């Protein structure tokens, strides 16, 4: 075994380890299985979760389903919107008060309930930890990347 081989082996090991940890942190964007969307840019995703984009291309209204404070998905959401928890609450209260949203996003405490809500609402969209995604959930790409791919933007 020469030095180059050993060095490459070490690099591979590190890469594998880092990938495993990164995949653990990735958060998937899940929509209703009937939704035709397959990819969103990060800017579009931000507008959707900020309530600025309120309908899909098919004119079906967007229905936001989010996790409660303290969850990894909530942290990812706040990072996406670049807000603190307090700013997020204030922001949505104002959105509803201005009439720019029918209601605040539905808050659910578990992945099972996220799945139920997404199935129930044709325009439903939610963030779920990639490792918790179950068969039957429709995961859409973000900036052309799926969770687990290097450079995936939602963690």
């Amino acid at each position, binding site marked *: 075994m020469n030095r180059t081989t050993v060095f490459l082996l070490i690099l591979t*090991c590190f890469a594998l*380890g880092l990938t495993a940890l990164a995949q653990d942190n990735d958060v998937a964007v899940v929509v209703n299985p009937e939704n035709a969307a397959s990819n969103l840019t990060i800017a579009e995703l931000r507008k959707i979760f900020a309530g600025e984009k309120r*309908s899909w291309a098919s004119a079906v209204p967007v229905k936001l389903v989010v996790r409660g404070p303290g969850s990894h998905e909530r942290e990812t959401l706040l990072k996406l919107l670049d807000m603190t928890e307090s700013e997020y609450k204030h922001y949505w*209260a104002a959105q509803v008060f*201005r*009439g720019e949203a029918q209601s605040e996003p539905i808050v659910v405490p578990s992945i099972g309930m996220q799945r*139920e809500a997404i*199935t129930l609402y044709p325009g439903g969209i939610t963030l779920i930890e990639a490792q918790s995604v179950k068969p039957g959930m429709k995961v859409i790409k973000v900036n052309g990347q799926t969770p687990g791919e290097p450079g995936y933007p939602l963690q």
Partner: protein
Amino acid sequence: MVRFQTLVVSCLLLTGQSFAQASGSRDQETIRLLQQQIQELQDRVETLEEAAADSDSTDAPHPGPQHQPAADQPAEPNQAPIVPAILHESHGIQWRGFGEVDYKVLDQRQPELSTFGFTPGSAGNFYTGEFALFLTSRINDKASVLSEIVFDELLEQRFELNVERLLFKYDLNDHLRMSFGRYQTGIGYYNTHYHSGRWFFTTADRPLVTEFASKGGLLPTQAVGVSVTGLLPSGRLGLNYILEYGSSDTNRPNIDGSELPTDEDNGNHVNLGLFVRPDAIPGLQVGGSFYHDNITNQDLTPGVRLGQTIVNAHIVYVRHGVEVLNEGFLIRHAQEHSQTVFNMPAFYSQISRRLQRATPFFRYQYANTNPRSIFEDVLLRHGPSFGARYDLNDNIAFKAQLDHTMRKGKPNLNGLQLQLAFAF
């Protein structure tokens, strides 16, 4: 060579440990989820038991969800936790309330109209300002109703009830959202974004020019009619429009102490606004609006009909706890069958920065009206305001604001306003 082999083995062990840690954390997560699901199941049982008890104790029919479940939807019992939310959205009314308690100290000798707002009343007064009840109800996916009912404090702790907004809203898609009813006119940024709940304001009051017309403000702040808004195809520019046609029917009280009302006897107005929210700079909004109506100056005999045009331009940045609001207005009154035209400018600039719970702010405002116009009671007023908002929690804020207002032909005004604003 042995050293290299040791290194390779160590590396493999570390990698394995990394996977093991990931796997371990997954196990812990699984346990946590299982515990959570047990709790959810218990909650579901409780919910179902309560529902069963309710159905036993009353004959009232239970509304069913309007939303038809998808074909692959789980069985009914599994939906129990989110069914209440759906019922609430489909049939219920969502209520929110906003209130305030204020104390204001002023050094004015001759009291002007109103207990708060544009022209404060006598010195050292407590008042409750606006108590707003806001309700929304979703009719279906696209239609909803919104209303804002405000109890305004008048003099001597009497209150009047105002339906500040009552809207039937229909959102066809992102490009066409319609509202029918009483709305706040889309003149500029502030009047579109801020309504009665002062808990939303950084400052203790509205900028002078955007004060409600019913409290002496210069703009026709409310109207009954149709408002259409939406996104125009513009890619990353984020170009939006707002188009309104309605009757503002403004009746504003003079603010110079005479308390004489000015009925503007409006016609129907048209208002067109355009603004951009570019993707490249989240939080930035740049835009303007053009408003036109015909009103009457009834101070003259006989009354003179005026063409009222209000042009607005604004540039606003709100993000990362930073708020920069800049708005300019030109209110133009042109007498019919005459060359007489009054151009009356007004603006405000406001800047604030959130630091943890405290948000210090500074605002400068200016209005300059013509003494021969229907705003003869306002004239030149300008000056700075500064203070701070302190958020005690997510629903309660305390504000302190100092105002210095310079008035043409009258003594300067200095004021201190303390406000406890809350949402519930």
